[in-house]
């Protein structure tokens, strides 16, 4: 009888020991994994800092007044700056009008059902289309007449339309987020006062969503400025050297991003090293300023509606 009790005590002791060892092991694994995650984060962050640091440190000294105002292909950037501005603003207008309206439909009018499902599927599928394919589509529809002879030729208008197609689903999604961030109370209060749907949208929801819509527009603007592949075969990769200071939409010309590529395609190994880096610095600074502003506004909006910090 006593031997049974003894063995029972022994097994229990052993079990406790096993448990303690397991617990110890789990604690060690926890510490190790903690270290691994810190390491991963450090690696990724240093990669980012490297990208930014390398471009800026190597390129900033080439950004001179002469470079900013000159219009020579390899040593001046003025036509590209103008084209970037032109194409960005040009594409944002149709994007804003169609994107925000479609977002209003999705967030205010649509009922759950097959139409909304198709719309969401269409928008998701459109986001997945590779930008070079949109470039070839733009070439087909706007630059040439379905391949048979010229339509507008390489032109800013073709680039603008290609970018509109490319960014429409992104604008829709960003604008929808902005509209959904407006609290439900706004809609209910407006409806309760006897306003109809249209009045509710234009007088209650849109004014409240303006900061969010500005954020959405800025995010899309950042995407447009960074886009290259969709523009190479629509607005063209050639850098104009004269006559570019015009509002003519059928004028061809490269943007900052395309310029980096065309300097590369022109002479892959050595040519215009300085011009490429300096353009890259300008592009990076532009993108960071735009995205930073978008983020700042987004946080302000979040604070305004939720009353707490992001």
């Amino acid at each position, binding site marked *: 009888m006593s031997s049974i009790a003894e063995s029972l005590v022994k097994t229990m002791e052993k079990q406790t020991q096993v448990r303690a060892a397991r617990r110890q092991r789990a604690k060690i*694994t926890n510490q190790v*994994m*903690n270290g691994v995650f810190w390491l991963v984060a450090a690696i990724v962050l240093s990669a980012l800092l490297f990208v930014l640091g390398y471009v800026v440190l190597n390129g900033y000294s080439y950004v001179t007044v002469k470079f900013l105002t000159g219009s020579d292909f390899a040593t001046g950037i003025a036509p590209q700056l103008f084209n970037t501005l032109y194409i960005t603003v040009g594409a944002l207008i149709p994007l804003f009008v169609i994107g925000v309206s*479609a977002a209003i439909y999705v967030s205010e009018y649509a009922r759950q059902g097959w139409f909304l499902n198709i719309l969401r599927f*269409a928008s998701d599928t459109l986001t997945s*289309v590779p930008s*070079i394919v949109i470039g*070839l589509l733009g070439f087909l529809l706007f630059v040439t007449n379905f391949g048979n002879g010229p339509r507008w030729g390489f032109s800013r208008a073709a680039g603008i339309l290609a970018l509109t197609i490319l960014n429409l689903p992104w604008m829709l999604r960003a604008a929808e987020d902005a509209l959904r961030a407006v609290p439900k109370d706004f809609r209910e209060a407006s409806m309760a006062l006897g306003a109809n749907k249209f009045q509710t949208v234009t007088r209650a929801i849109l004014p409240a969503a303006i900061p969010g819509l500005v954020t959405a527009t800025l995010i899309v603007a950042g995407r447009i400025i960074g886009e290259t592949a969709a523009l190479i075969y629509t607005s063209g990769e050639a850098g104009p050297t004269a006559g570019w200071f015009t509002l003519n939409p059928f004028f061809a010309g490269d943007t900052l991003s395309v310029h980096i590529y065309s300097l590369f395609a022109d002479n892959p190994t050595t040519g215009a090293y300085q011009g490429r880096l300096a353009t890259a610095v300008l592009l990076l600074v532009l993108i960071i300023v735009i995205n930073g502003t978008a983020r700042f506004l987004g946080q302000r909006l979040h604070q305004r509606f939720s009353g707490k910090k992001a």
Partner: protein
Amino acid sequence: MSKAQIQQADSAARLAGSGKFSLKKLFDDSATIYFTICALIVIATLLLVYVNIGSQAYQTFTQWHISLTNLFTSNNWDAVNNFGLKANFSGTLMLVILTVFISAPFSVGMAIFIAEIAPNWIQAPMRGAVELFLGIPSVIFGLLGLIVVVPFVRNVMNSLAGAYLYNGYGIIAAIIIVTFMVLPTITTISIDAIRAVPREIREGSLALGATRWQTIRNAVLPAALPGVMTGVILGVTRALGETVAVAFVIGGAEQFPFTVNATAPFIHFSNGSDVLTTLLLFNFKEATNNTPLYSVLYTISFMLLIISAIMIAISRYFASRRVYR
């Protein structure tokens, strides 16, 4: 008043108003129509893309009598008569698979760090940094690849091979560059997926005596997995569609990314290969209308469209499996 009475009164009021012309109602109705049309434009845009690319794509088969099997099984590409895509297709496949396999663990690790482990004060700045990373244009990645990654790959591979065999251009450099580009895409979506897991799940696990890592591995990650997978699939579409960044470092030659034979380093990486997207970019310049090349390039575009659409269908499947959002 009962509910039925209210409804009756309501419909009576509507009837009374319906006959009268009202500017307010006209605006309301036309606005509804206008917003619906704008939503239809989004669907129409997708159709525009598919129909127009498709209408050019099918001419490869009807007008030039190049068979689909020929495209996939031949690796002879001369851009005039022979359009074998085997080498480019394997390039794309290798790029997408390796890129996603390398960057997914880092991205998910980064997302776990930001959402679960990092102290509060660094969470917001780190998220900002990842979003900044996401916004960097692909040309800049390409340029960096050309200036930094290509020489790096050249030096490392030649010193490993013990002879000057490689110029640094090719699939390896492309994989390195695209890995960095896919990373923030997967990370941001994974952060959202992990954040969406409710606190109760974590608290329950911790209350049972689990350590933080056990909680992450056994409770949080399984709950967030569908969301994380959505991010991974979107990473695949980004790697698949990436053109310009790859164009800077791929070298542009229609050959297999690597060959295997019995001599010294056994796996010989090609000095320059191509993927489907860069094939489009490099060859479209020379393509003129009414040539087989022109049609074949649109066929490749259509293939990319189809693959991307399949990827989106998969990611939507994972999204529909999400319990927490």
